[in-house]
């Protein structure tokens, strides 16, 4: 187990390194932030001074080395436009993004799995066909468009739910969260559902396929022949075998939920880190872009690790041996 964790840690470090080089070189080639930021009234002397202050006058490899040595000490640089540590800016917003992503994931599981099982058990019924039709819509319509339609219907026309923001937050261990207050939930509902829609559809389809496949297998027939109740067959035999592929996909999808939250956050003015990165890219605020990507890579790696551990719990045949699974 420990050698497995060590090799995973090594993988993460390599990923971080490759990622940082790619992003750094990419950003360097995109353009000089000073041209975007500086007012035309500034003299060349002032311009040079700012370029020096930001360290942009040094060759790219030197800038990179400075970045790496600072990063190793936990300093990801100061945002050019906020003049605040980029790490602080991002971590300040991380809870909002995570709350949105996890709520969306929970919605996906709570709605997706039962609907998927149902659709898998009674594939020919009208209700099951409706569920499948819904899932096709969830797959094919773009998130931002659905988000706007939801705002138009539920906030503007019906006036049931607020269109934007986080509402009243309650501090949970010093972290502000929305899901503990009614007002918070009213703000959370639309964006989370918007983000979850694609996942719900995906989970419905996966569960349905899994259930339909497992129901045909010999051990289910055998269990039936033994006279075990349908409920128990479903709960113990079918569900457990369906869950294995599902966990892998959900783990991967949690990562994409956090990444795709950018779109939803922008539409619903949700104060998460996705909004920050969009603004940072448009003004080439390099430290914020870099820090965001670094933190995201770390998060992805941790999630993947957790998924692997969970996997071994559900399926005891999976063992941690060296770097292989």
């Amino acid at each position, binding site marked *: 187990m420990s050698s497995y964790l060590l090799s995973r840690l090594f993988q993460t470090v390599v990923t971080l390194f490759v990622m940082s080089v790619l992003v750094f070189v990419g950003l360097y080639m995109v353009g000089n932030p000073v041209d975007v930021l500086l007012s035309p009234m500034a*003299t*060349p002397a002032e311009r040079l001074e700012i370029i020096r202050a930001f360290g942009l006058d040094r060759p790219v490899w030197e800038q990179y080395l400075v970045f790496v040595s600072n990063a190793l000490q936990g300093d990801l640089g100061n945002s050019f436009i906020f003049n605040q540590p980029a790490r602080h*800016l991002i971590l300040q917003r991380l809870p909002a993004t995570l709350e949105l992503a996890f709520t969306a994931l929970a919605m996906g599981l709570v709605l997706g799995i039962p609907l998927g099982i149902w659709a898998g058990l009674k594939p020919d019924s009208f209700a099951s066909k409706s569920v499948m039709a819904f899932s096709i819509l969830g797959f094919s319509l773009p998130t931002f468009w659905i988000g706007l339609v939801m705002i138009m219907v539920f906030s503007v026309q019906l006036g049931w739910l607020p269109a934007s923001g986080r509402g009243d937050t309650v501090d949970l261990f010093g972290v502000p969260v929305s899901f503990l207050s009614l007002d918070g939930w009213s703000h959370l509902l639309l964006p989370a559902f918007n983000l979850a829609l694609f996942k719900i559809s995906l989970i419905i389809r996966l569960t349905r396929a899994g259930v339909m496949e497992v129901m045909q297998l010999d051990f289910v027939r055998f269990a039936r022949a033994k006279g075990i109740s349908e409920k128990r067959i479903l709960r113990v035999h079918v569900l457990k075998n369906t869950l294995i592929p599902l966990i892998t996909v959900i783990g991967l999808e949690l990562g994409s939920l956090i990444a795709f939250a950018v779109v939803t956050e*922008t*539409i619903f003015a949700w104060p998460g880190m996705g909004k920050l990165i969009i603004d940072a890219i448009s003004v080439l605020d390099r430290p914020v872009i870099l820090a965001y990507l670094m933190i995201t890579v770390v998060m992805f790696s941790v999630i993947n690790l957790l998924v692997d551990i969970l996997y071994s719990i559900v399926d005891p045949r999976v063992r941690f041996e060296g770097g292989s699974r």
Partner: protein
Amino acid sequence: MRIIAAAVLAASVVFLPLTATARDLTVGLSASATSMDPHFYVVGPNSAMARNIFDGLVNQDAHQQIQPALAESWERLDDITWQFKLRTDVKFHDGSDFTADDVVASISRVPVAATNSPSSFTPYVRAISEVIVVDPHTIRIVTDGPTPLLLNNLSRIAIIPASQGETSTEEMNRGNGVIGTGPFRFVSWTPDAEIVLERNDTYWAGAPEWEKVTFRIFSNNSARVAAILSGDVDLIENIPTADTRRLEDSTSINVIKATGNRLMYLHMDQDREESPFASGPGGENPLLKPEVRRALSLSINREAIVDRVMDGQGTPSGQVVPEGYFGYDAALTVDPYDPDRAREMLAQAGYPDGFTLTFHASNDRYPNDSRVAQALGQFFSRIGVRTSVETLPGSVYFSRASALEFSFIMGGAAVETGEPSGVLGPLLETYGEQAGQGNRGRYSSPEFDGILGQARATLDDDEREMLLKKATEIAMGDLGIIPLFFLDNTWAAKGGLTYEGRSDGYTLPYYVSAE
């Protein structure tokens, strides 16, 4: 305990009439202030937010003309010495009195706050060589030469209490020491999400109507519109052009428009014999010829662009400042749309069959910039200039434009000084160490430079205005830039709320009032 509760109840009954009239205002902004330090970064959202919390010695009004603020009057003692009489009845949010020492501290803090600033306030204090305290309510400012724009520059410098003269930007961003004399006091700030202010009951120009103001940031256009439609906010700025007509038709929403100070213009390569993206039959740069530039300007139907592409949110222009500004010249009319004349002029200039041109523009920096660029490309094609249009994200576009990688570009410049020299200088003065830093077309006219320089050193307003008009006339005659139109500033307010639109686009709740 019960007694206290009863007392609180009694007190609240007594104050009920007062709290019933006090109201809160929620404003949807399109961009976030990046700092609470008013001396850190010269950028629209920061300057607008600073105006809510701070005052300058003088302030700019809705048309960017100078009005007395913390200085109630001023006089010029000689060409380089200005004396300001300060208000005596002003208190800072922390309760301290406003005096001359605070002015000295504020001006000296500018270079301190410039550390790590992407665009600092130092250009505004560059000309100030000395600030002398005459008495607690009189101050003398000595400049290193005649500086007619001194008042304009001072309007940009927020006055902070002397006790905060050494406070760092980091400290202010944490919310410590954000103390001014403005209509609202600072309460809290979450970068890119929310800013909360509350009423300054002792504001020297009269307490604001709003008890508490919450600014929320909606950088996405549709989200901002949805927020006002759903009633989440009371007022939004920058209505996306596509939604203007719809909001105008809505009976529960007031749309407010004002001609803005941002000029959209075209820069053309005017100093290279061969240009990377413009070439005539012999490979030469056709943009060097003034006739060609005029032909291009005549080929543009500015009215149509404003009306169709901008949904009416613009004002066509033939010069660099909008009407009502110091230095506006009524004689400089907008070039009419005349494609026949344009073709004729092209033929006279030696291009009867036109030439090839690639036109570059940004696609995320100004409202509808890429669509305006497409429309312009079509107008040029109609007079025989084989134009292809390439639009790029601002983050890539501006560095490449500054490096002169393009031949023909579109830009937008804000007239922040309330008069023409603030645009004429950066965009049209001959490029050099101290001048023309935004002159990406490298237009150069010694005559123009001379007159502009003269205007900068002329303190007499009438004479200066005359010189500025003359300089504008020369630059527009040569078409050093082709002016297109001024972007309108727009706001949408809930029914029952009014706001006087501003040319600088600032959203200032002090001037929002309930009918």
